[in-house]
């Protein structure tokens, strides 16, 4: 790999800023809807990073599924339940919770960073076949083709199971949220 160009650095840092800002918005906003908006920002940032890493299909899926469907679901539920009032962030019934949370999050970041840095120059044990990149032979479908080949040959069984999973999830949720007819003894 050659050194990155200035454009690539710019893209990376912009997306990184979007991600971090969105994340902080999620955790720090008083109004839940503001948190949801911050989430969208983060999801977009991640999609940009996917593109930068030549995972085009995933970027598309990220936008469509995550930002498009999941966040919308969140907003639906927010409106449905009316939990959209602003909450007071300074209330914390469990005294030790915030210090513990700080320890956990900082610890995780530090440790993962340490692991990453330590293995920076590690030899690759089992490098894969390589990721096909679109611009090599003008083949725009390279990524999706390689992805689908992997999905439908190596991981086809898991793929079938996910379809089952989705059906189960839908059926389960319908049952969960269904209002049962009340009988005389109470529900």
């Amino acid at each position, binding site marked *: 790999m050659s050194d990155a160009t200035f454009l690539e650095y710019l893209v990376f840092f912009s997306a990184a800023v979007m991600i971090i800002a969105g994340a902080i918005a999620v955790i720090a906003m008083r109004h839940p809807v503001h948190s949801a908006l911050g989430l969208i920002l983060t999801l977009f940032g991640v999609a940009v990073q996917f593109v930068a890493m030549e995972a085009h299909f995933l970027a598309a899926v990220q936008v469509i599924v995550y930002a498009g469907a999941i966040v919308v679901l969140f907003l639906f539920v927010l409106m449905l339940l009316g939990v959209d009032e602003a909450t007071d962030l300074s209330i914390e*019934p*469990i005294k030790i*919770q915030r210090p*513990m*949370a700080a*320890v*956990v*999050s900082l*610890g*995780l970041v530090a*440790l*993962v960073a*340490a*692991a990453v840095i*330590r*293995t920076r120059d590690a030899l690759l044990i089992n490098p894969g076949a390589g990721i096909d990149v679109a611009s090599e032979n003008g083949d725009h479908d390279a990524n999706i083709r390689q992805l689908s080949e992997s999905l439908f040959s190596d991981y086809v069984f898991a793929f079938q199971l996910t379809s089952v999973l989705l059906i189960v999830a839908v059926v389960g949720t319908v049952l969960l949220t269904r209002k049962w007819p009340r009988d005389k003894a109470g529900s």
Partner: protein
Amino acid sequence: MTDVVWLIPAFPLAGFLVLLLFGRRLGEPGAGYFGTAAIFASFLASVAVYVDLQGNPEDQRESASTLFSWVPVGALQVDMALLADPLTITMCLFITGISSMILLYSVGYMHGDSEFSKFFLYLCLFVLSMTVLVLGENLLVTFLGWEGVGTCSYFLIAFWHTRESAATAGKKAFVTNRVGDWGVMLAMFLCFSAVGSLSYTVLNNNAESGLLAESTATGIVMLLFVGAIGKSAQLPLYIWLPDAMEGPTPVSALIHAATMVTAGVFLMIRINPVLAASYDWVNPVIAWTGAITALFAASIAVAQNDIKKVLAYSTVSQLGYMFLAIGTGAYVAAIFHVITHAVFKALLFLGSGSVIHAMNDEQDMRKMGKLAKYLPITASTFIIGWLAIAGVPPFGGFWSKDEILLFALADGAVGLYIIALLTAVLTAFYMTRQVIMTFYGEQKWTSKAEEHGAHGDFKPHESPPIMTIPLIVLAVSAVIIGLIQLPSLAAVPDSIEHRLEDWLHVVTPAEADIAGSWADEHVVILIVIATLAALVGIAAGWLVYQRKRFKAIEPTILAGGWYYDRTITNFMGGPGRESFQAVSDFDSTVVDGAVGAVGVGVERSGKGLSRIQTGYVRQYAAVIGLGVVALLAWFIIRGVL
């Protein structure tokens, strides 16, 4: 024929089982005759084995028959085995013989009792246990019989269990015996750990060939002696025997005169090589215990008014003689005295039972008198018994007592001799007193019906033949039993002297050899002294009670048994009980508390730990996160990641 030795306990066992299942149906007197027949069959089996053994040359008179392997556990291999040798067969002969006489007598004595068949059931069980005790080839089989006779003693003493004094006496006997049993058990453990086997053959051979250390031998002997003290009612554990008179008279005759109480003596004789291999102080301890007990009990008997209690204390005293004999190495004399005592004491007890029966269950001698003309057979047999126990030649008791005195003096312990002689005088004295108060003297009873709870005019009646025949048989035996061991006098032909000693020679290797001692040289003088002692006692008794020349001295301290029993009761009830209570409290608070504390500790720690279940999901998540951080940190530090 020695392989039929198992029949000796088998007949009583069969009798027991049949009476257990069909006793009530057999009823009275069928159950009684059946029991008697079973015991008599056992006696015949003993005779058969005896004849067979006698026919063998002297060194082949020992035969062990193993019935089955009882305890096969690794190093401990104990068989249910019976040993037929001169000692055991001698014991079996007189045990089963006298038992069958007593059972026959009981058919008459227990007439009308509501639990007639149960009585014979227990008696069969007793004879079974006693024969097993005696025939045992190893300590464990003997102990089985030992415990069996103790249990039967409890059953039979408390036979009339609705009477509180009887039930208490039964318990007292059992508990006191238990103290002795502790000694026997410890002795068994010691024997096994030292010798590797519980068999008498192995133990005695080891002792004889010097393989047994002096300390071990002493330990075994002293522990078994503790058991013997309990079972044979010596100081300090004799207290149960006088109270055991609460049982029916045949029980007193059989168990507490003739058989069970001799088990301790038997055990000591069985292990006589071990006695010889122990420290020098062991034998004198045994001898002095016996002597002091003899004197002590004789002194108490002088002041007793219950006809059976006199005989009970007399038994304790005579048992003391036997232990005196053991302590001086006179094992043959001890066995001789066991046999003669069994005969005349059973006779005396059965005779007293006949008297009690005639006087409508009156046992206080102060209310008797002049019964000789109403109870001729009872009186004459009782007199024979009296002469035997007093030690008047040529009756049985004289020869055995004389042998014991001989060996005591030959051993060099003049003190023992003097005590034994004094006891002999006292024995003659109190027995004379008893005979006079009961059969002669003044008539203290009236013909008035109300005083005796009878109907119509009261007159003591002689017992039915079923009761008098055993009396006569025993009386005849008392006369001639002396023949089995006559001393070597010029007047005695060689063929009949020392017969018992020759017979038992092979099983008593540690018998003291008194040939050449002063006592042995002057046997005749000693015989004269012993006879004089008896006559002095009789004369004194006659003068005090018949002729009323001197005032009868019966101090209350003697009547109260030197207050020994009362002291023990007070101690046990008072400080004894408190200390036991303290131990019990310790157990329940400390020991049980420790166990309970474990449970309480678990519960408390569980409660404490349950406080982390706050219910707050976020806290749970935080703790999980902490765990992940810790794990990651560990991995990274360890270099895994």
